[in-house]
């Protein structure tokens, strides 16, 4: 059931183990309201990517509950493909389909999942491609584009599904420095339009600019979950402070 008033993404005591000895997520509880932009940061290996992948059930978890738009992921009756189609996801390594042209990348799921006609899917795809400034590359293959361009196509591909929320898993980590801005610009624009976003990133500039909240994770735990102003402002945990001092040092 869809609930307009409640949070878009709701996590309660989510825990995940890779083995009985190794717990990657420890009792993670948080939520993302409709239209909210939440940045998740933390040192590598802290479980932030794993956490975000749990949101659309790409990663299974053993305890706790996650609800997206009121739908419980662990409910055996939940149609996961159908739910995933409503949540956009952007990956660190873009993951465009290398054997398909850009237009096909944009149309595939629109046609196969949403049942849109070719014309409809194409029109949507072209419009989004135009929006991310890549219209002239429509007929190319992903490998012919730069990393930054591929990531923008990947964002357009996710948006083509008219998602209710977008998940970004370190979208700029695999990019050369000069390409980071072009991707962040698209994301900033999206945030300003009111898209619900959960973003795993180290780009604190992006967090400062558009995030409403910042979640800091370490060793599988959510250490801090605060408003942006509070997080970047005064009191905070030692671990978050240490992390921030490291990534903001330069």
């Amino acid at each position, binding site marked *: 059931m869809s609930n307009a008033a409640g949070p878009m993404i709701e996590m309660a005591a989510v825990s995940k183990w890779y083995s009985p000895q190794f717990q990657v997520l420890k009792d993670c509880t948080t939520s993302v309201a409709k239209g909210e932009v939440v940045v998740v940061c933390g040192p590598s290996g802290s479980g932030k990517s794993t956490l975000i992948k749990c949101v659309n059930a790409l990663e299974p978890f053993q305890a706790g509950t996650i609800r997206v738009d009121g739908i419980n992921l662990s409910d055996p009756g939940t149609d996961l493909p159908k739910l995933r189609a409503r949540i956009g996801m952007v990956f660190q390594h873009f993951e465009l389909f290398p054997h398909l042209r850009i237009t096909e990348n944009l149309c595939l799921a629109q046609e196969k999942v949403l049942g849109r006609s070719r014309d409809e899917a194409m029109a949507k795809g072209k419009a989004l491609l135009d929006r991310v400034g890549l219209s002239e590359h429509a007929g190319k293959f992903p490998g012919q584009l730069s990393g930054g361009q591929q990531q923008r196509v990947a964002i357009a591909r996710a948006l083509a*599904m008219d998602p209710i929320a977008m998940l970004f898993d370190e979208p700029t980590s695999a990019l050369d420095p000069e390409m980071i801005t072009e991707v962040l610009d698209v994301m900033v624009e999206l945030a300003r339009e009111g898209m619900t976003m959960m973003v795993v990133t180290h780009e604190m500039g992006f967090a400062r600019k558009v995030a409403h909240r910042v979640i800091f994770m370490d060793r599988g735990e959510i250490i801090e979950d605060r408003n942006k102003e509070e997080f970047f402002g005064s009191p905070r945990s030692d671990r978050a402070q240490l992390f921030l001092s490291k990534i903001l040092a330069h």
Partner: protein
Amino acid sequence: MLQFDFDIILKTLPYLLREGMVFTLTLTALAAFGGLVLGTLLALMRLSTIPGLALFATGYVNLMRSLPLVLVIFWFYFLVPYIGQAILRTERPVEVGAFASALITFTLFEAAYFSEIMRAGIQSVPKGQLSAGYALGLTYRQVMSYVVVPQALRNMLPVILTQTIVLFQDTSLVYVISITDFLGAASKVAQRDGRLIEMYLFAALVYFLISFLASLLVKRLQARTAIIR
């Protein structure tokens, strides 16, 4: 001193091609296609998380790969009529015919080899590609058919074609069930006219040329079809 008569080749060429080579090429093409389709299914079964499916596919592949092809050809030729009888519940063994029997055998046999190729190909597709497919809302079947298998096929095309060249040579084994393929046709002429050396030399040359040219072609294709990454 031996007397060679190479005119015999020219004289019998239409027969060799029409009777023999057409059969050889038809069997190769059909068995390669069938084997690839069945092999891909077997590969998917083998990689599936359903234990029964994986076990069946593994057993099948290992069995086929442990038996000599000639033996399998024989067995199927004699067994298929009885299997057909059991399935269709007819009174007599079903007449299958040598061609159908050979086609079924080669398809089933090649499927085992193609399945190993496709398994490697499917595993060569990065896991992130599957995640991307699922994240877009595609189902397992859709992820496999639109994302994974097309990439696996492309990655494995050179190996698939090389295996098909091997199959092309292996089809000559149908002589054991008295089918006239290219080699069989050459052999018939050789026996009839006592021109063993000329005919077998010619047959060898034809097999060599076709296989060699095909492998050259595969090499060129490889450069062209590689996915730009």
